């Protein structure tokens, strides 16, 4: 599904112990509309994805990709439209959806006064996790766990975002520019995590302004000229 890149780093070749907790589910959104005041950024956007599949969202800067991802995560409320996540025949409400997604985005930040491990430990407690797989992911991605988040480089911060997103074995990964600031080793490792997530039956929605070289059955192109008119 994902085009393998050259020069895989050694970490990704380790046996996969990460498994997503879902078997069959679907995620669809329809007629999503979002305006910042009178400025409409999303105009009746629709899309769908299923277990083990990935939806790619493409579009230039300012076409509303981040807004769409934030709406899907439940961090912004669209003015109109519906979002429906059915997990094993059961529909998840807003609260369950917020808790159930793994979100990576440029505006995901952590407590700078706490170390990477302390941050993840805090979120593990909030998520009610008995054992925290993020520690392993952190190690696998090579993030120094004891370093304060304020002292992490932007690439390390991106790796930490991935660890946060995968911490609770989410059924849905919402990735907004998932590989930004990553070096090639980091990109390979996170691509491997995404592949494993999909192979284990998870879903993913990936937004990026550039072609990430991800093979995907479904594509959604956001066109700012169409949605800017405020029809």
């Amino acid at each position: 599904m994902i085009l393998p890149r050259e020069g895989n780093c050694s970490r990704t070749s380790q046996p996969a112990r990460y498994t997503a907790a879902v078997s069959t589910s679907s995620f669809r959104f329809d007629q999503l509309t979002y305006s910042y005041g009178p400025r409409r950024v999303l105009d009746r956007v629709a899309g769908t994805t299923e277990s083990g599949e990935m939806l790619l969202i493409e579009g230039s800067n300012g076409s509303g990709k981040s807004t769409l991802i934030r709406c899907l995560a439940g961090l912004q409320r669209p003015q109109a439209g519906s979002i429906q996540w059915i997990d094993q025949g059961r529909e998840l409400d807003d609260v369950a959806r917020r808790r159930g997604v793994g979100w990576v985005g440029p505006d995901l930040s952590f407590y700078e006064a706490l170390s990477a491990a302390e941050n993840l430990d805090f979120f593990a407690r909030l998520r009610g996790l008995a054992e925290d797989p993020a520690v392993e992911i952190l190690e696998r991605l090579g993030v120094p766990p004891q370093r304060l988040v304020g002292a992490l480089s932007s690439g390390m911060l991106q790796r930490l975002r991935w660890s946060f997103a995968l911490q609770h074995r989410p059924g849905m990964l919402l990735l907004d520019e998932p590989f930004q600031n990553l070096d090639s080793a980091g990109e390979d490792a996170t691509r491997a995590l995404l592949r494993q997530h999909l192979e284990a039956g998870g879903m993913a929605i990936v937004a990026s302004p550039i072609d990430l070289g991800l093979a995907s059955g479904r594509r959604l192109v956001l066109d700012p000229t169409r949605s800017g008119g405020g029809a």
Partner: protein
Amino acid sequence: MKTLLRWSLWLWIALCIVGAFLYAPLAEGFVGQSSRILFFHVPMAWCSFVAFITAGVHAIRYLARRDPAQDRAAEAAVQLGLLFCVLATVTGAIWARVMWGAYWNWDPRQASIVIVLVFYAAYLVLRDAIEDPSTRARLASVYAVLGLVVSPFFFFVLPRIVEFTLHPDSVINQRGSVDMESRMLQVLLAATVGFTALFFWLHRLQIRISTLRMHRESEELVS
């Protein structure tokens, strides 16, 4: 139909004004003609109360349905409520000067009306400070609901500060019975009904204005 209603409202209020000055007798124990202010002061205080309750109801409806029209209605009600609140405070202060010798006495009702005034002025300041319309509507509605929760405390906390009140028990006294000359009571009730109708009419106008303004702003942005 609407025109008829509007004209009957004008007529009703005109009759109230005439009644207040010519029909109703003067109350005992009041300086000069000062008791006549009652027919305007009480209905205006009542209207601000109605307006803030209306705002609270629209705020709760907004939070339940997230319909921006409900938020505009709440904002309009607060604006009008503030107008009536200021008018009631000013008429009250003028009357207090005549009767008690000072514009301001920290009478419990004076104090509570001025706190309510500050509270809803803060509501408008909060609206001004938020740019995103849906965030603005959401937080302003929460603040209006908080007002409903806290305001009952004004009524039994403030009398502690000034244990005695000079304020006349205007309509309903401690015994729970209506103790007022019947012609005065007729005019007062008629004025209260008239002012309440006036409030709801102004409220609808204000909602229409804010809706039109919103449409114009979005049209300007598109063109």
